[in-house]
């Protein structure tokens, strides 16, 4: 097993005087095998992003465990253990602007990858260009530019390109392509699938778009109010949804070949 999430719970306490508890993630458990594409689907506020941050050890849980290749993630000590964890598990976030240093050119964020990989000096240029091509960017359009000179979609693509160069064991991607145009989303997702098929990379894809999840996933987890309410194959989720929430979600997706009654 690559990653095991066991009874993960996160409770936030808010308010200075009237203290209130918000259960953001409520007893969430699931497993990730190697070479599996798993989608975590839910509305905003369902606890998807908190789950992602817990898995990446960016937040401490209230209770529960995350085990990666037999090691307890929350028990990792020191920079070396953490660094080795992040070499296996790579996070991509919705707004990648924060991942860039605004004073440095885009090239730097790509070249940093070589601190973790074994590419020789001579290979590097080719590796960067190939990765950019894979995400549909022309290197002459982005290299040498600063983060603010690129669009949100371009910045998201560069994070995916970086991931492609790094070839981690698990990609934890939180709405990684939300700013990319509908017309090119499919090709970026295909890149994740390619990594899965060629390098046994696993993906946890967090999205509110059940339609996208349907195409690319091996397994779909439906999250609502902090809990996973249903999990299954994409076909089961779409064609035989069991939970009322899943059924509602499916009915509310605008379709192309079918018109909503009453519209």
């Amino acid at each position, binding site marked *: 097993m690559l990653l095991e999430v066991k009874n993960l719970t996160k409770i936030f306490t808010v308010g200075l005087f009237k203290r209130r508890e918000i259960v953001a993630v409520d007893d969430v458990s699931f497993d990730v095998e190697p070479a599996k594409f798993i989608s975590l689907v839910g509305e905003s506020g369902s606890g998807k992003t908190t789950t992602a941050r817990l898995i990446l050890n960016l937040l401490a849980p209230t209770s529960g465990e995350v085990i990666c290749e037999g090691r307890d993630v929350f028990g990792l000590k020191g920079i070396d253990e953490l660094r080795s964890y992040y070499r296996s598990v790579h996070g991509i976030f919705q707004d990648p602007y924060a991942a860039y240093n605004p004073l440095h050119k885009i090239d730097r964020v790509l070249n940093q990858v070589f601190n973790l990989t074994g590419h020789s000096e001579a290979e590097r240029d080719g590796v960067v260009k190939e990765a950019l091509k894979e995400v549909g960017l022309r290197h002459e359009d982005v290299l040498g530019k600063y983060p603010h000179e690129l669009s949100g979609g371009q910045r998201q693509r560069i994070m995916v390109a970086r991931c492609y160069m790094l070839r981690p064991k698990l990609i934890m991607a939180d709405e990684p392509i939300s700013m990319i145009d*509908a017309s090119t989303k499919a090709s970026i997702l295909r890149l994740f699938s390619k990594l899965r098929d060629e390098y046994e990379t696993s993906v946890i894809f967090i999205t509110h778009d059940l339609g996208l999840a349907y195409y690319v996933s091996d397994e779909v987890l439906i999250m609502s109010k902090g809990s996973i309410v249903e999990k299954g194959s994409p076909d089961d989720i779409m064609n035989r949804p069991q939970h009322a929430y899943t059924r509602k979600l499916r009915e509310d997706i605008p379709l192309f070949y079918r018109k909503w009654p009453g*519209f």
Partner: protein
Amino acid sequence: MALLEAQALKAYYSVRQGYIQAVDNIDLTLDRDVTLGLAGESGCGKSTLMNALMMNVKPPLHLMGGTIVLDGMVISKMDRTELKKDVWGVLVSLVPQSSLNALMPTMRIIDFIKDVIHHHTAASDSEIVSMARKRFEELNLPVDSLSLYPHELSGGMKQRAVIAVSTLLNPKLLIVDEPTSALDVSTQKQVLRMLVDLRKTGIIESMIFVTHDIAILRQIADRITIMYAGKIAESGPTEDVLFDPKHPYTVSLTSAVVTPEPEVRERGLASIPGEPPDLLDPPEGCRFYPRCTKSMSICRSVEPPLVKSEGTQLVACHIVSGDG
């Protein structure tokens, strides 16, 4: 008479390096009692076209030419004072992108409504309150929410409140720009339902809905106009444009639609290679030719005119017009 008629419309942004040709020589006619969907990739000039159509042009955006006739009035000849008095909010309302944040955070919804409506009419406070209550009831919005502050409303409720305020004076045309892109699918459906109701109840006559989500347009649009790089590529009745597309760009766009349906699964996922051109220096001839799989030599030098195809659509493509 059409509700809106724009001819040879040009709206450019002036920047240090020159002009960004965001809306370049566009003709557009909108009939009464129609929902028009405007689709295209980001950066194709959709939002600029909407602002230009209602004469909401402020530097760096400039109207470089063209005429706009709205409900019989030549609004392209009017100045901002006249537009504010007789056109905006009264004849046409625009709900721009990110209008979720258009409400004043320090004002209750009803006070915000009073503030906005006072700019347009001489109605008293109590008249405005009863007008707003009646309208919220009509649109199945909770009347209690009028006395709340924006932060007390959910995203979907905020968006519906913004649309209700924008249409309080029954404008003939409502323009909504990506009104649901920040919302979950369930909330999105509520907003779309409300927009459909606005037309059914006759509060507005026609609507232009701007989005890059073709599946939404399939649900609510009677007609669709596809824009590419500042120009219209194709325009016609929804079913014809989506299921019998004539322009190669529309063909790519419709085959990139990702909806969870067996038909889509069968044809597989497609995407359009490359990126739209830089509108500071767009290609000569057809702006789509660098990405087009069917381009011919004429496409590199001659701009294709928007002409009637053998179907019901208007199409700007040399293949359709039979040149080359």
